């Protein structure tokens, strides 16, 4: 496990050996945070040598957080595409359709790449199982991805227009589900920070997906057609920031990982980029090509960082036994004080 080093200042990282003290230890050593204040006082709790209770997800951050991001972008892009299609904003529609197709294709690549046995991907579709969000998601993608491609092909080729319109509409129906089901995918685990946030995460992902789709519109569509994208950016950013704020208020201890360490940095960067991108889009997105592009890029980056931040926070919460033991202890205490609620 850990190794000791001999340095000019003495031995570092040596284990206590004979002087080891047995018995209960109060929690685990805190890792050095940069002046971050703990939200709740340190609770005393026991662990098995400070080791995690849970096995953390073995997913690659790039694959799975990337998948969450691309799925969110694709789903919201399909809605944007349908809106643009209906209101005859042809360039915006084309951009949004391309974005949906590209993002969902890449997300499928990421999902399959992360499998331990990628050649068995199709086993996902050997059953239909509503208790498994990953199974539901696979069926959803199996229906959604071809629709986005059909919508794009029809638009690009200019042929089979009625079928293309139907595919655009179909993708717009499934798209929002693709965007928000990924929150259930994370929440339906024993990972404390993900599970405890199951009420707010879908809204945060919906808002973030909307902001990302608006970002693509701002980045690639002509400025003359970006009015809805600007509105969508502000609505999405508002929904995302509002729901993450509510999440931090509602869940006390297990929201800590969203503010600490690597995850905290990502979440703060996401917030700054989303707010900055939205302000720029609303103020100058409909006049200046450069401003629209910068705003779009910032919104896309902000949305990606939210997914990576949420992913990292969950992994951190699974790796620290505090977030597993302390809330469960508190729940037990509450149940004991209220015997009538013991069967909750």
């Amino acid at each position, binding site marked *: 496990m850990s190794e000791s080093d001999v340095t000019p200042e003495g031995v570092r990282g040596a284990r206590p050996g004979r002087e080891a003290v047995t*018995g209960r230890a109060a929690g685990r050593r805190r890792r050095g945070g940069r002046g971050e204040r703990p939200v709740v006082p340190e609770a005393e709790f026991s662990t098995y040598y400070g080791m995690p209770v*849970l096995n953390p997800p073995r997913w690659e951050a790039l694959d799975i957080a990337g998948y969450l991001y691309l799925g969110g972008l694709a789903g919201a892009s399909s809605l944007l595409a349908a809106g643009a299609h209906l209101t005859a904003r042809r360039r915006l529609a084309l951009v949004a359709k391309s974005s949906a197709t590209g993002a969902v294709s890449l997300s499928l690549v990421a999902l399959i790449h992360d499998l331990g046995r990628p050649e068995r991907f199709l086993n996902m579709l050997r059953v239909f199982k509503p208790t498994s969000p990953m199974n539901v998601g696979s069926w959803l993608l199996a229906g959604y991805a071809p629709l986005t491609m059909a919508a794009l092909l029809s638009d690009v080729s200019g042929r089979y227009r009625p079928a293309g319109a139907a595919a655009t509409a179909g993708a717009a129906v499934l798209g929002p589900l693709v965007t928000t089901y990924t929150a259930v995918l994370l929440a339906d685990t024993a990972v404390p920070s993900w599970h405890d946030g199951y009420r707010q995460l*879908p809204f945060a992902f919906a808002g973030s997906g909307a902001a990302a789709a608006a970002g693509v519109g701002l980045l690639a569509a002509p400025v*003359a057609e970006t009015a809805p994208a600007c509105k969508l950016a502000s609505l*999405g950013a508002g929904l995302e920031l509002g729901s993450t704020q509510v999440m931090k208020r509602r869940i006390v201890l297990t929201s800590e990982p969203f503010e600490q360490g690597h995850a905290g940095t990502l979440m703060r960067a996401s917030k700054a980029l989303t707010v900055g991108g939205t302000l720029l889009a609303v103020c100058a997105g409909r006049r200046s090509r450069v401003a629209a592009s910068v705003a779009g890029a910032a919104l896309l980056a902000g949305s990606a960082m939210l997914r990576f931040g949420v992913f990292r926070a969950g992994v951190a919460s699974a790796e620290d036994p505090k977030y597993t033991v302390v809330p469960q202890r508190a729940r037990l205490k509450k149940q004991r004080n209220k015997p009538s609620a013991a069967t909750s």
Partner: protein
Amino acid sequence: MTEQGPPQPGADHPPRMGFFTDTSVCIGCKACEVACKEWNAVPADGLELTGMSYDNSRRLSSDTWRHVAFIEQRKPLGGQEPGVSHDNVDIFRAAAGLGVTIASPGPGATAPAPADALPGAPAGETSPLAPDGRTELRWLMSSDVCKHCTHAACLDVCPTGSLFRTEFGTVVVQEDICNGCGYCIPACPYGVIDQRPDDGRAWKCTLCYDRLGVGAEPACAKACPTDSIQFGPLEQLRERAASRVAQLHSAGVLDARLYGEDPQDGVGGDGAFFLLLDEPEVYGLPPDPVVTTRDLPSMWRYAAAAAVTLTAGVAVSFLGRSHR
């Protein structure tokens, strides 16, 4: 929205089988770990010395399906008499009486008279200090294993149906189906199932499904020299465990408690439950595990509401007077 629990015993099902691990008689020999590895051909997971205790396998994982925890505490076991010394006992004289008298070698053959106990360490009571000033400690050992939950999160979230419930009420991975998506790993509230890095698939205890099929007991229970690991129909094990706790309490081991035997708990009771001598988290077990899929219907509702909100948001973006 959890899947149906294990089958009810009936004409077409054997009774639900499980483990009762009585940690009060575990001696930490790790025969269970070895037997499990040998029978199930579980690959080696490295020879690492943790330095923290005699526990070098650390935790349950894809390649450790039985794991013996070692915990040292500054606390005497109930019923111990640490102050009683055997200094003035002639062990050879006592041995000479073996088989000669009816009383020998009965209980108390080498025990000193209560009056011999040193002050501060009265016989029959526990003392935090041994006569020579050393601190008393107790050593807790516990063989951990997959709990084979009644409401198993790993089984619920498995997207391929690779994880299934057997006729014995146990939860088993079909390795020819598993595509290594890894969803079961963060779903498990106990940190049991894990991915084998070089293989990609998820692995865990099968409660020796192959042995059960031919009426044999699992390898770990077979190998356990102290019957700390007991295998049998779950109903019988629960009765046995309840009487064992009562026995330990009457013997003064008031720390004894059962873990995972309650069908009313967050996972509907474990198929493999434990008798522990301290809080579960001391052994690295969660104090109040809940199957994550219990909240899944609510999660789907929130996701649907968020999807509707997103659709409404996009619709609003296209409404109103706008110059394109």
